[in-house]
């Protein structure tokens, strides 16, 4: 009889708080049972401003000196009286930081906190039939006591249980994100996920941050083509032609059939005044019959016109 009840309880637990139950069986490897990140700033939120407050907290911790006020202009949406998730992910780029969306799993979130990265979580704090969305920052936990520690609203150290927190957090689909400096890769980041985040950072416009990001990514994943292309492009933009050419040559050693790398190397060589080499390179690119053909042809045209302008006759191309 008791066995039946216990089984029933376990089933109920699996239904109500599935991820907490999973932690019981499957605590993430190498993650301590209790930890708290020291020195995480606290910004008590103003009304409806949990987004800016949470973002200021993690941005400051990542080394960008910022308070909630300027963030309000970047994240808060007056008509919705709150902050949208996609804007939370984009905002760090304007401060030279990367916003990275974590996998929707307790294990990943705990792992990031254990590694020293506070995590912004989206939870529904209403216990009633309507939703009350709220961003809080997870800064620590003590699994032996079943407690989590959050910077939340006006509370610098809200203590909540794993189960109660999961009930609120699951309603957002277990949404969680970290904000890190571009050369500090989150411990749970995947190669493709992180590279996408860096490309988005580049779009956001901070060149030095993006260069640092791509450099670190290439150290971690030396075969990643997109990071190499990105790095070379930024060196080129900055005027560091020799650096750009070096990155592209190394890239071609690993990816001999990359049209983009060949095209960009050709352009870089031409920009260095080495038009004859550039022409050879762009012809190699065309031989590949890969994508971006029209752009490669346009690059070739540019190289030829520069050769003629500088008085050298173009080499007869095959």
């Amino acid at each position, binding site marked *: 009889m008791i066995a039946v009840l216990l089984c029933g309880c376990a089933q109920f637990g699996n239904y109500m708080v599935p991820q907490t139950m999973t932690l019981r069986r499957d605590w993430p490897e190498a993650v301590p049972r209790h930890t708290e990140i020291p020195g995480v700033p606290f910004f008590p939120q103003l009304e*409806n401003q949990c987004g800016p407050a949470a973002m200021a907290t993690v941005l400051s911790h990542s080394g960008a000196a910022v308070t909630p006020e300027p963030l309000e202009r970047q994240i808060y949406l007056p008509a919705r009286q709150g902050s*949208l998730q996609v804007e939370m992910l984009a905002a760090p780029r304007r401060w030279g930081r990367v916003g990275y969306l974590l996998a929707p799993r307790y294990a990943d979130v705990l792992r990031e906190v254990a590694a020293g990265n506070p995590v912004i979580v989206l939870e529904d704090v209403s216990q009633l039939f309507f939703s*009350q969305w*709220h961003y809080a920052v997870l800064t620590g936990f003590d699994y032996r006591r079943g407690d989590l520690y959050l910077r939340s609203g006006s509370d610098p150290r809200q203590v909540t249980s794993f189960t109660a927190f999961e009930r609120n957090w699951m309603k957002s689909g277990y949404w969680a994100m970290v904000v890190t400096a571009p050369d500090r890769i989150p411990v749970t980041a995947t190669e493709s996920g992180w590279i996408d985040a860096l490309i988005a950072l580049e779009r*956001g416009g901070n060149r030095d941050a993006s260069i640092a990001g791509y450099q670190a990514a290439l150290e971690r994943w030396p075969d990643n083509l*997109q990071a190499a292309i990105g790095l070379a492009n930024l060196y080129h933009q900055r005027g560091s032609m020799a650096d750009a050419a070096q990155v592209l040559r190394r890239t071609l050693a690993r990816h001999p059939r990359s049209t983009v790398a060949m095209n960009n190397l050709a352009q870089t060589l031409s920009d260095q005044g080495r038009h004859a080499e550039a022409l050879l390179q762009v012809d190699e690119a065309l031989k590949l019959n890969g994508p971006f053909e029209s*752009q490669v042809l346009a690059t070739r*045209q*540019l190289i030829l016109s520069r050769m003629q302008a500088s008085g050298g006759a173009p080499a007869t191309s095959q």
Partner: protein
Amino acid sequence: MISFKKNTCRVLAVSLLVLSFQTARAGMIGTEQAAADAGATSQRGMVMSVLQRADTAAQLQARGIDPAQARERVAAMTDQEVSRLASDMQSAPAGAGMDSGAWLAVVVVAGLIWYFAFRK
């Protein structure tokens, strides 16, 4: 919305000029372009992206953001995110925290429950 029409007209005019003078651009192939699929990098794809950004920025303006800030917010996002923002603005979760409105609802509901429970 007048500002939306104005923005669209501006963007269309610029796009027509761009398309009529250029087929393909020489020079470095960009990181985003290299990573994206063929659809996004076509001329049509690029024009659609510019249009969507203008449209989404206008929608932010309509929801209380000043024009310059709206453009900057959109500029920090990838094409996919801009598209996501456009659809999220209406009804996706907007984190705010506990506010007075929620407490009022709690009081009202509690009052109603008490009223109907004790009326019998």
